[in-house]
């Protein structure tokens, strides 16, 4: 394991400190742990948004704390959901009389830990609700399984429900918008090289020089299939075809998010975007806006995910609303 770190045990704490110190006017860290909140607390008349998950997805989620997006991000150990007590501290710190909405990625651990925290908050009469993001089409959705994972589409839930909350909408309204995004956002990812959880010291999987993993999540785990490496265009087509088959994007306007997994050079993301744009247009999808970069990463994994969000007028307006966070300014 070759990493620019100081000690395996210090990775998460130093990372959060480094993030907060990069934007001291915007962010504050709670004393209780890896909990980042807005330096300027939101007015009591607006719903506060809390998200979080394991570390290792930087800039998610701490980088999206700020005006127009999240009020609080709670980080766990690398790829490990934070614990309910920490999430509860975060909720308490940002709670307003309008209430708190938790945005949770659909992973068993995240769901259970947030569920326990929400129970704790409700016990203390905090108005709190949650939504679960499950945008990853690599995994079949089914009543009997864990369901689809929450991946990079989560950023668009942050963005759009964050804008709704800034408008002063009620908790129910913010939740409705968040769920509309969730209903309309789909993603899929792949990796050409794995990542190493610092505490584990070795990669989550190994790949031969000509192998890739298709259908990966965002926790360094292997994907749904291993395949021989093919061209960037062919790879992007596999992901897009799965996404386009899941819900009907034809004729709709979409936001395209080409997300790097952490070690993918921007050069490659742009090459992929070049194909994605042409392919979507050829398939009757209208592109409203495009984001290319590292938004929801897996430490130093090389690979990418594609996310499409189907828009209506309400979502478009909220997507365009201002945001001022370390990782996204609009």
């Amino acid at each position: 394991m070759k990493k620019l770190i100081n000690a395996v045990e210090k990775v998460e704490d130093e990372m959060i400190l480094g993030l907060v110190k990069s934007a001291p006017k915007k962010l504050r860290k709670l004393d209780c742990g890896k909990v980042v909140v807005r330096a300027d607390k939101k007015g009591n008349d607006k719903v506060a948004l809390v998200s979080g998950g394991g570390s290792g997805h930087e800039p998610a989620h701490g980088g999206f704390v700020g005006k127009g997006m999240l009020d609080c991000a709670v980080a766990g150990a690398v790829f490990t959901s934070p614990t309910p007590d920490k999430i509860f501290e975060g909720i308490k710190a940002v709670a307003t009389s309008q209430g708190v909405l938790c945005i949770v990625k659909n992973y068993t651990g995240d769901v259970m830990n947030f569920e326990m925290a929400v129970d704790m908050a409700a016990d203390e009469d905090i108005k709190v609700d949650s939504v679960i993001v499950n945008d990853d089409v690599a995994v079949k959705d089914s009543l009997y399984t864990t369901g689809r994972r929450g991946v990079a589409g989560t950023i668009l839930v942050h963005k759009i429900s964050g804008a709704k909350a800034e408008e002063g909408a009620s908790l129910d309204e913010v939740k409705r918008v968040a769920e509309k995004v969730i209903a309309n956002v789909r993603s899929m990812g792949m990796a050409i090289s794995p990542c190493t959880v610092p505490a584990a010291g070795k990669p989550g999987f190994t790949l031969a020089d000509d192998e890739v993993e298709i259908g990966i999540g965002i926790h360094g785990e292997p994907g749904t299939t291993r395949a021989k490496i093919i061209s960037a265009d062919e790879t992007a087509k596999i992901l897009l075809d799965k996404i386009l088959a899941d819900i009907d994007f034809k004729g709709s306007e979409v936001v395209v998010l080409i997300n790097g997994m952490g070690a993918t050079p921007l050069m490659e993301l742009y090459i992929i975007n070049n194909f994605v744009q042409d392919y979507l247009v050829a398939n009757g999808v209208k592109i409203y806006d495009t984001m290319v970069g590292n938004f929801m990463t897996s430490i130093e994994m090389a690979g990418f995910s594609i996310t499409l969000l189907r828009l209506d007028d309400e979502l478009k307006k909220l997507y365009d609303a201002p945001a001022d966070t370390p990782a996204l300014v609009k």
Partner: protein
Amino acid sequence: MIDSKKIIAIIDAAAKKIESEKDFLTQLDNEIGDGDHGINLARGFKSVEEKLATFADKDIGAILKSVGTALVSTVGGASGPLYGTAFMKAGNVCKGKFTLTDEEFAEAFNAAVEGVKMRGKSAEGEKTMLDALCPAYRAFKGGVDGGKTLIPALEDSVNAAMQGVEYTKTIIATKGRAAYLQERSLGHQDPGATSSLYILQAALDVLKKG
């Protein structure tokens, strides 16, 4: 019959077992999860170990509850809420008690297993810790009901858990991270089932030593 000192000894032994099997559990989780199960549990049981000294005068309910809270607030991931809930639910059943009859032990065991099912919205056969815990509980309960004493009943329980762990190799996961791998989860043993087995083994080892 088990007293609170034994319970403390069992928790201590479980913590040591998890620490010593940390890398293996992580390796198992690497294959079909995200490679942190051993790391997560070891972190949690280390914080439990740090609390051991405060357990001496407490009743079994309070001890188990305290273990559960410690796990919930330090493990994270899926196994934190699951094991945490298991210990807390078992603790509920043992409130105020300084000793447990074998029947009461079975009752606490049952509460723990039901707690996992509730928290995980899961059932046996989904390739999770429940595939060790459910048969282990049934074997224990059956043994006690059939007149076996504690140690033989727990021996049956550990054997059942062992078979449960083997069984996880033969099925496709439908809960937890391994579910994302679909068919690729076949042939691999579930990390959570394995850590459950270790905790039961630790209990048996302590009781056998007397």
